[in-house]
């Protein structure tokens, strides 16, 4: 069994090495097997681990080798297998495999086909390290690795300078978060003398609630999560990251990398429940992100940007859930979100492929006739994200909303706003893209076709998962068994005693009522969207939007990118110019060149000793001998 655990990340690593080293020589057909094949093997092994999960409860840590052992510092290269990491393994390898298969069809004509799959395999390897690590250092290796792969894959079509800029932006913003993560790790080591999860979590229980050190540690780790999971203020990289190929957006920026922050907080749950101020900050940040991204998404016209802001918004949801101690609700929403968001992105990719690269929804319309499979799967995903039963999104959102309401009514009201916004902008996208009349050019209309089965079968699989995925955690009032909650409960058992609920639902009637409220509001928003975008056909062209002050503000995404540019990028570039013109040119260049000039000048002076006159040489010889003899007498 330990061998299987070692093999799970090994296969994607092998895939990366083989495809990365031989990308000029390996034929495309072989890559189509190696790329997804390694992920499939990892998925099957993860299933085996799931089936045998009870074997790991006594010895969850599997050490491969002693990595760093230096005095007090002992960091083994070890994997931790418990229900939480098992769930993440299945999501990463399962959804990853589906997206790899989709990419075979999507990237088929691309020149960098082999390079794409090698980067994707490297990404899956890094993500597996992240979720399987038994200490914060292994997690950090994976953390950095997924950031790197994000850069490589966003800037995949590297000949376009704008895409390169987007890739740099993603990587640099990630790095800012990583600084917080590193500082958190340093504090962790100083406080607990170890970076292994088990050591830290056992020792943490001895700390009182609200101790300053734990607050500092959790805040710093959360800064890392803010960078990785695109919360305020480090979220602006994610909409720009849509410059990469659509499978990349699906895998990295919907299903896996952005969920790394949520996983990290869930893993460190005992530390977070010991720091209520940090939980409050997480809650406020998550809620603000949820609402801001939702508002911006309403006015976007690029299909991928709408989905990007939707991802940011849903991540805000997960962080709000985490901030109230509803860890398994957050993980449940992470799982269902992976399904329907990946589906949304892949379906968007299908549309973009069919329209020959068009991403503006104002130029789409009426696609339901020409792309039926994409239409139905997209509908299922949109219903899921809006929280319509019995699809998966309903159960996970409801879990979160109920948990929020038991702690704070204010937050629940804001979360309801978020639910309404989600339903509105998603159905706006749905109606504008698929219903009505086609608004593009005539030749694009003639080229409309449903995608190949290599691309539609993954859509169908994900649609089934989005529809049925909620049944893994049916709440008790529906006579469900809450399988996922009980599966994950050993991981969150220690922290559950610290979470205090303000309200408790005394009977099932109240609970059903609470569940009905978001449903009713979502339905109202869907009907509003139907009215506005299908029946009235109000396409927002630029004149309408920029006329009104508020709509212009939202359409320009609150000018946040421009503010960042003014506050951070320009001073930095100015400083960089000064460093170049003054320090580099005037001091360093002069110094280094000066040494060279010095040597040349010395040579120019000393060469006159070589006069060529033999008598002079003889004289110097005699003089030298006398000098040595004199020195000899003087010293000795």
């Amino acid at each position, binding site marked *: 069994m330990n061998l299987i655990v070692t093999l799970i990340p090994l296969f994607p690593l092998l895939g990366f090495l083989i495809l990365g080293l031989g990308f000029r020589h390996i034929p495309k057909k072989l890559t189509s097997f190696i790329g997804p094949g390694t992920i499939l093997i990892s998925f099957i092994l993860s299933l085996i681990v799931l089936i045998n999960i009870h074997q790991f409860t006594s010895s969850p840590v599997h050490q491969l080798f002693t990595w760093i052992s230096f005095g007090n510092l002992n960091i083994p290269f070890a994997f931790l297998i418990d229900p939480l990491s098992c769930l993440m393994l299945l999501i990463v390898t399962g959804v990853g495999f589906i997206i790899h298969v989709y990419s075979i069809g999507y990237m088929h004509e691309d020149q960098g086909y082999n390079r794409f799959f090698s980067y994707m395999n490297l990404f899956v390897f890094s993500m597996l390290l992240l979720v399987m690590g038994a200490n914060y250092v292994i997690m950090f290796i994976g953390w950095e690795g997924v950031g790197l792969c994000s850069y490589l894959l966003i800037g995949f079509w590297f000949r376009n300078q704008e895409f390169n800029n987007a890739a740099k932006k993603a990587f640099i913003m990630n790095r800012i978060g990583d600084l917080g993560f590193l500082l958190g790790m340093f504090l962790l080591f100083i406080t607990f003398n170890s970076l292994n999860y088990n050591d830290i979590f056992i020792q943490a229980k001895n700390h009182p609630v609200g101790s300053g050190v734990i607050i500092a540690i959790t805040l710093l780790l959360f800064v890392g999560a803010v960078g990785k999971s695109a919360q305020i203020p480090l979220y602006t990289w994610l909409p720009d990251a849509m410059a990469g190929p659509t499978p990349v957006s699906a895998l990295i920026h919907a299903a896996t990398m952005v969920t790394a922050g949520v996983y990290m907080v869930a893993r460190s749950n005992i530390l977070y429940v010991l720091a209520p101020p940090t939980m409050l900050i997480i809650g406020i940040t998550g809620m603000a992100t949820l609402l801001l991204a939702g508002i911006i998404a309403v006015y976007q016209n690029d299909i991928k940007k709408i989905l990007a802001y939707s991802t940011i918004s849903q991540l805000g949801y997960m962080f709000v859930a985490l901030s109230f101690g509803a860890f398994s609700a957050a993980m449940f929403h992470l799982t269902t979100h992976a399904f329907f968001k990946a589906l949304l992105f892949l379906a968007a990719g299908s549309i973009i492929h069919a329209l020959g690269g068009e991403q503006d929804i104002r130029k789409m319309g009426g696609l339901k006739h020409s792309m039926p499979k994409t239409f139905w799967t997209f509908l299922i995903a949109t219903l899921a994200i809006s929280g319509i039963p019995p699809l998966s999104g309903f159960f996970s959102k409801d879990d979160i909303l109920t948990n929020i309401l038991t702690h704070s009514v204010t937050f629940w009201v804001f979360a309801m706003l978020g639910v309404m916004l989600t339903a509105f902008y998603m159905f706006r996208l749905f109606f504008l893209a698929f219903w009505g009349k086609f608004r593009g050019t005539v030749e694009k209309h003639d080229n409309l076709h449903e995608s190949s089965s290599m691309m539609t079968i993954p859509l169908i699989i994900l649609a089934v998962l989005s529809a049925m995925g909620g049944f893994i955690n049916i709440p008790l009032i529906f006579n469900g068994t809450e399988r996922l909650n009980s599966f994950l409960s050993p991981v969150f058992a220690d922290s559950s005693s610290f979470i205090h609920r303000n309200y408790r639902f005394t009977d099932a009637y109240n609970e059903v009522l609470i569940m009905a409220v978001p449903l009713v509001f979502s339905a109202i928003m869907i009907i509003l969207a139907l009215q506005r975008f299908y029946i009235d056909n109000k396409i927002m062209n630029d004149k309408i939007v920029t006329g009104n002050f508020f709509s212009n503000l939202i359409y320009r995404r609150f000018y946040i990118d421009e503010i960042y540019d003014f506050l951070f990028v320009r001073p930095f570039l100015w400083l960089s110019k000064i460093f170049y013109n003054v320090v580099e040119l005037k001091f360093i260049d002069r110094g280094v060149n000066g040494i060279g000039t010095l040597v040349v000048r010395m040579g120019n002076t000393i*060469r*006159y000793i*070589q*006069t*060529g*006159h*033999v*008598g002079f040489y*003889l*004289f110097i010889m*005699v003089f030298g001998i006398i000098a040595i003899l004199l020195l000899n007498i003087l010293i000795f």
Partner: protein
Amino acid sequence: MQTITQNLQIIPLNYYLYFCSALFSIGVIGVLIKRNALVILMSIELMINSINLLLAAFSAYNNDPAGQIFVFFIMVVAAAEVAIGLAIIVVIFRTTNSLDIDVLNKLKW
């Protein structure tokens, strides 16, 4: 043997020292000042001879034959050196048709 060294030791050692120093200095000055290559060689020979004399003197006054054996070695080396030196001077004369060492100043900056 004893009587020869005893007879030799009548002359104080200092005289040999002064004499050889004078000879050596004349040799050094000759090397530095003279421009004729052959004269420079002769000055070098003069220096060698002065050293030989000094070595022999020390050997006689300390009753140690090692000094005189060393003189043999020095004579061999001197002979070889003169042979090569003269060969080089012959070649130089053939190329430059002069014995003046100031002619050989081409290997300069």
